């Protein structure tokens, strides 16, 4: 296993960093307060190829490998988890899954639009009464003469407020099945969802499907294989994005903490010179490094298309999201009252980190997956 970055990957990381420094970090707290990210930012992400990072050039994508894509998620996530969550749902959950399982027609129609951000995509799985228990969804599909009719409600859908294309997972005669649903489908309405703890600018919405008629060609994947094929692929892709995004949050907390410790005085010393603060920093940096290696390892295995990449991605997501929560809490502590105030980013990182433990398979769901794998055989994990 070689976890060193290639020259190309290093250069990409520099590119992402400079974009984030100038275009994202200075505005992220405002986006969080106002509860949305502006269209101009989304256009810039599209123009840079960040919304189609891993798509092949033939579709207008940037054809990045997974390690590089992980770096993109880390860098964007270090500044603004709401923007990172757009990349997660648009690129990882939807575009990459269409690339994997879409028909030729679906790919030709959607991927060029998604690659540039001309169309935005969102993923509708969760419902008011079903989250972790994906098989418990109640949205239904019915077969009609020329397609399908969908009925139900999807809740907590990231970027539902702006997306043009939704993947909707529904239950029907042949089991759980996924569909591509366009925003202007009659019967589809989106209600903005306010008041979320973290990723506050991620424009959550509730999607109401009221006798929505979907043409036959918008069936996504095989009937009855919606969970195994579409949802599993999408969540695996999404977990990688969230793992790297969590790493980004933690690294930002650590960087800000070190900067603060070098400037703030207490009891006649700089914070950095207090032993207990040194201990905090040593623990933070060790945790960040461990998560970084897990993310890099997952990216490396994903690039090799190794079947162990799936459990290793789960491991990276599990560790990185919990670690981000610990580090963000420590960073608030280290900043004292200032850490609790919205004039700086730390309180936002603290709120955003909690969301990472809930989305793309909660901490408890990862624990079940990782434990089951370990019990069957440790060799896939260690």
């Amino acid at each position, binding site marked *: 296993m070689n976890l060193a970055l290639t020259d190309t990957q290093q250069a990409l990381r520099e590119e992402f960093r400079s974009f984030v420094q100038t275009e994202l970090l200075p505005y992220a707290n405002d986006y969080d307060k106002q509860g949305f990210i502006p269209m101009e930012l989304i256009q810039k992400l599209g123009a840079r190829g960040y919304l189609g990072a891993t798509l092949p050039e033939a579709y207008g994508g940037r054809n990045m490998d997974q390690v590089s894509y992980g770096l993109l998620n880390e860098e964007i996530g270090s500044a603004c988890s709401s923007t990172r969550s757009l990349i997660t749902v648009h690129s990882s959950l939807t575009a990459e899954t269409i690339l994997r*399982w879409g*028909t030729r027609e679906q790919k030709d129609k959607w991927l060029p639009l998604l690659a540039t951000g001309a169309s935005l995509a969102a993923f509708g799985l969760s419902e008011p009464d079903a989250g972790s228990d994906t098989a418990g969804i109640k949205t239904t599909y019915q077969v009609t003469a020329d397609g399908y009719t969908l009925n139900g409600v999807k809740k907590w859908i990231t970027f539902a407020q702006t997306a043009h294309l939704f993947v909707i997972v529904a239950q029907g005669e042949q089991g759980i099945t996924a569909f591509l649903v366009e925003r202007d489908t009659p019967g589809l309405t989106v209600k903005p969802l306010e008041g979320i703890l973290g990723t506050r600018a991620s424009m959550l919405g509730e999607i109401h499907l009221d006798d929505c008629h979907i043409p036959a060609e918008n069936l996504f*994947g095989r009937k009855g294989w919606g969970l195994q094929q579409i949802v599993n692929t999408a969540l695996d892709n999404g977990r990688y994005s969230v793992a790297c995004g969590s790493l980004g949050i933690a690294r930002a907390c650590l960087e800000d903490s070190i900067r603060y410790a070098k400037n703030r005085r207490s009891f006649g010393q700089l914070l950095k010179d207090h032993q207990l603060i040194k201990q905090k920093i040593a623990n933070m940096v060790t945790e960040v490094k461990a998560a970084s290696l897990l993310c890099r390892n997952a990216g490396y295995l994903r690039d090799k298309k190794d079947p162990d990449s799936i459990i290793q991605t789960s491991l990276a997501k599990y560790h990185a999201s919990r670690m981000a929560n610990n580090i963000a809490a420590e960073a608030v502590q280290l900043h004292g009252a200032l850490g609790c105030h919205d004039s700086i980013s730390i309180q936002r990182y603290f709120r955003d980190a909690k969301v990472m433990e809930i989305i793309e398979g909660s901490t408890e769901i990862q624990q079940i*997956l990782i434990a089951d794998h370990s019990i069957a055989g440790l060799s896939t994990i260690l």
Partner: protein
Amino acid sequence: METPTQAGPRVIIREFLQKRIGQDVQFADTEDIFQLGLVNSLFALELVVFLEKSFDIAVENEDLNLDNFRSVSNMETFILKKKGK
């Protein structure tokens, strides 16, 4: 990739399944591992990636039929068919 097919897909498939299901769990080549409840929710995804990588095939939309994956023998038949043998 000629080598793995020469070794016999059955051997390679079984080795992978035992690794995922547990070395100590017994099941016959013809038994339905899904029906026996031996596999978790991530397994179908891992299996597809494994088959593609080990046998140099592309599992496509239309290949997703449980009959292709339910047992070691069925998977072997599926691989041989995909390889045109």
